């Protein structure tokens, strides 16, 4: 087998045992990137020199008999929303095109300390706002299964680079489905951990109460491996959870006997693609065969998830993105044409008008409006109340079941350009994923079949707070019984 086809777990073992050098491993993936990324556009920055230098350093250390980290030699692609001190961090925005942070995100720091090799920064929807990756200021990512289709978003670059074997593992972020939905559309496995499980420090904020970093890989086992490194308490993030980090990889073995999986009737609403419905039903059958029981549960407020999300997330975003004002860093307009109250107001307005793309502006305006005097109670405050009801739905459901399951998105990957003219249609791609973030719990998505035209169909499991071991174990069990996750796009270019 070529190194680029090995699982992350096998790569780490091979490097540790000396069967494969970190440099060989890194070169194999860099070669894939070189060959394919011109067509896929998954990377905004490939750090060839930095990656090879790090790999060589790991090899030298190993040869000298010194200790190497848990992920030694493992190439990792990082979504360009996480700060990296040695690489630009753009959020796929003109606003931060030339921004270089002075510090590493906590996740990046942990990856480096575990001797992972950061190969580059992946493309995304601008400031993680979008579900198709078409909102990137640097061109959309193409779905490796069909280059005319979207990879999903906002972590589209991370999903696509794993699907195309350009990296065995990528880091994504999920505010309303941004890990799970592109993972589903690209046929890979993506975990959105419980809110607070992975530190947000150095994750450029979109909606602070919803954002969460997670791994994207070719299997649950590989996600488990990465989670052992990136999860954990960070005193620098007040919302980070203090709970101990389990050995996720060691908790995969237990069978699923007795596990109750909830099937949500609301997930089968109008608009669910029949091929997706079929794949999802077949997945339930696999779980039953594995010893789980499937019961119907209700999430009565789930239908309010999207409107609730599209109030809370833009409200927080309108505040989080206020700092991009052209004063201290980021894009500053050079125009001094006048026509504003003052030169300062002109600088603000023009810098933001030039620096942000249309979707980011739309959400800033939505959020600013919803937080304004006279509207706050009707919109933001009401959304917070509904959020509590949704969270309560989940708490109630998890009294009856261990996991909640269903489709990750209503359709397989859609055509690029298909929804760009209709923001509301685009917002509905998050239909099945936003409630997880509103409830603050964890979710995982993975392939459960393919359409006749060869597009992956995604399945989603959601669990109670800190149920990552069960989410990973159930997915791993599914992946032992099926081979959907091992399928690769045949010919990308």
């Amino acid at each position, binding site marked *: 087998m070529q190194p680029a086809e090995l699982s992350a777990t096998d790569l780490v073992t091979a490097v540790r045992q000396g069967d494969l050098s970190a440099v060989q491993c890194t070169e194999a993936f860099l070669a894939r990137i070189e060959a394919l990324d011109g067509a896929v556009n998954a990377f905004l920055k490939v750090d060839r020199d930095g990656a090879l230098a790090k790999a060589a350093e790991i090899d030298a250390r190993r040869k000298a008999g010194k200790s190497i980290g848990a992920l030694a030699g493992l190439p990792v692609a990082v979504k360009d929303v*996480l*700060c990296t001190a040695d690489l630009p*961090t753009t*959020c796929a925005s003109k606003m*931060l095109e030339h*921004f270089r*942070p*002075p*510090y590493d*995100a906590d996740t990046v720091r942990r990856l480096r300390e575990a001797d992972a090799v950061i190969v580059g920064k992946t493309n995304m929807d601008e400031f993680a706002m979008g579900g198709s990756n078409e909102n990137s200021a640097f061109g959309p990512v193409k779905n490796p299964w069909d280059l005319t289709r979207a990879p999903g978003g906002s972590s589209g670059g991370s999903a696509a680079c794993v699907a195309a074997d350009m990296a065995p593992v990528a880091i994504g972020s999920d505010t309303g489905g941004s890990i799970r939905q592109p993972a589903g559309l690209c046929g890979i496995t993506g975990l959105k951990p419980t809110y607070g499980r992975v530190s*947000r*420090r*150095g*994750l*450029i*904020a979109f*909606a*602070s*109460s919803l954002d969460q970093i997670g791994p994207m890989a070719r299997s649950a086992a590989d996600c488990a491996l990465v989670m052992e490194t990136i999860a954990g308490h960070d*005193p*620098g*993030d*007040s*919302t980070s959870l203090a709970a101990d980090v389990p050995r996720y990889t060691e908790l995969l073995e237990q069978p699923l006997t007795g596990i109750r999986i909830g099937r949500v009737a609301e997930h089968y609403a109008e608009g669910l693609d029949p091929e997706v419905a079929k794949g999802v039903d077949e997945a339930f059958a696999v779980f039953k065969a594995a010893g789980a029981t499937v019961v119907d549960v209700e999430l009565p407020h789930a239908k309010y998830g999207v409107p609730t999300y599209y109030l809370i997330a833009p*409200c*927080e975003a*309108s*505040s989080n*993105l*206020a*700092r991009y*004002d052209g*004063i*201290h*860093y980021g894009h500053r307009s050079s125009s001094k044409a006048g026509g504003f109250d003052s030169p*300062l107001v002109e600088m*603000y307005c023009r810098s933001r008008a030039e620096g942000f793309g249309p979707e980011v502006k739309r959400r800033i305006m939505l959020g*600013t409006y919803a*937080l*304004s*005097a006279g509207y*706050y109670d009707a919109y*933001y405050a009401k959304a917070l109340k509904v959020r509590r009801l949704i969270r309560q739905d989940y708490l109630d459901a998890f009294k009856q079941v261990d996991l909640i399951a269903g489709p990750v998105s209503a359709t397989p990957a859609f055509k690029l350009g298909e929804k760009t003219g209709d923001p509301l249609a685009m917002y509905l791609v998050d239909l099945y994923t936003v409630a997880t973030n509103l409830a603050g719990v964890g979710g995982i998505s993975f392939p459960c079949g393919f359409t006749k035209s060869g597009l992956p169909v995604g399945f989603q499991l959601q669990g109670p707070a800190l149920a990552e071991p069960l989410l990973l174990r159930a997915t791993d069990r599914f992946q032992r019984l099926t081979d959907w996750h091992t399928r690769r796009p045949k010919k990308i270019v």
Partner: protein
Amino acid sequence: MSSAASESLAPYTTIIGLEVHVQLQTRTKLFCGCSTTFGSPPNTQVCPTCLGLPGSLPVMNREAFALAMKAALALNCKIAPFTKWDRKNYFYPDLPKGYQISQFDLPFSSDGFLEVVDPKGAFSRRVGIIRVHLEEDAGKSMHDEAAGTADTRIDLNRAGTPLCEIVSQPDLRTPQEARAWLNELKLLLVYLGVSDCNMQEGSLRVDANVNLHIPQPDGRIAKTPIVEIKNMNSFRSVERALTYEAARQWEEWQVTKAELGTTPKQTRGWDDPAGITRAQRHKEESSDYRYFPEPDLVPVTVSDARLAEVRAGMGEPPTELRKTLADKWKISAYDADVLVNQGRDLVAYFEDVATKVADGKVASNWLQQDVLRTLNERGETIDAFPIRPDALADLIGRVQKGDFDTSRGREIFAEVLSSGRAVADVVASLGIAAVGDDELVALCQALIAENPKIVADVKGGKEQAAAGLIGQAKKKNPNVNPGKVRAMCLDLIRAMS
């Protein structure tokens, strides 16, 4: 409650509320580990968090919260068992995140009061505290208009410094009261170690809200529009600005008869050199800060145990300390007030001296007449005062024993101060030695022999004539104790008859 005479004579009552911002005396900022030291080169005390860089997150400084709780407890406020942080959104170049982390609808404390009592009895006022909340400071904008560049430079050293905002009820009735109340507030906060309250360094800032209540012939009370006064750089400025503003509103009222609610709230800036307030630009509508709960921070809960812990570490506030000092050392309320108003270090100094000389009144006199006067002249604080309590007690002890009198003691005090030598050395070098009994008897006998007229007067019943002998005794020997000379001379004269 007594009130200032002017209040009852004026045709209106002045209604004053104050809004005070104090920087908390923490080593580090409210949400990051950067130093809060004043006066460092611009932008040297900054990190990703206080620069508002993308991806940075705040972490609450527990010390700041504890200090703020101390202040609120000392202001008799209720401490909320649950409090949260909110974002106040506005654009300004020295606000790097585009929002300030503050507290909106659930401040950590509310409903307190602080009393101010004029030691001379001119007024006594209990001023309600609406709320005390914690927030982060912004940076500083420096407008450099030299050479026509009109550049603005931003220093973010101050950005993120913890601030306590204290909002009073409109309970103050005269500019003098307002000033006295601010003095009392400052004293309290300095005593607690909550803030150094240094107005020059911006660690205490005051805005005032003022309007007039004017009784009408029909018995109705007309209220003038509330004006907020800003830019006051000292408590004296606050008093002057309020005095000016009350008079200005009275004159305006007589012309316009404009009442509260008919015009938007006006902000006026105090121009100290000109001694007037000036209207600042009218905001067309009140700012909409779009407050919402800060999602990057978790709410703070305060347990009873924690509250007890903070309370236990508070020490005695000035109001109680004044009573304690007056009772314990048998000094007047006025004296206790003067001592306490100088701060905790001076009180400690006083108590040390008073204990050593076993006389509060004498120690208080020396402190007020000699130590405080010297401190004022030299512009020093007590901790830097070269005569330490031991030395002063030594000096006072010698006066008490009658080695020399108080005025001679003052000379020694001055010499110890200027030379830095020990009291005993100075006494010896000035030839000041205790006058022995034999020496005293000899001196008095000589005086009697030389002053038959005085002796005759005393014998004739005019004892006060003996004062003439004392002046002569001091000339013969500056070390003699006048009381002893007088007693001895009287004894000798009586023995003659």
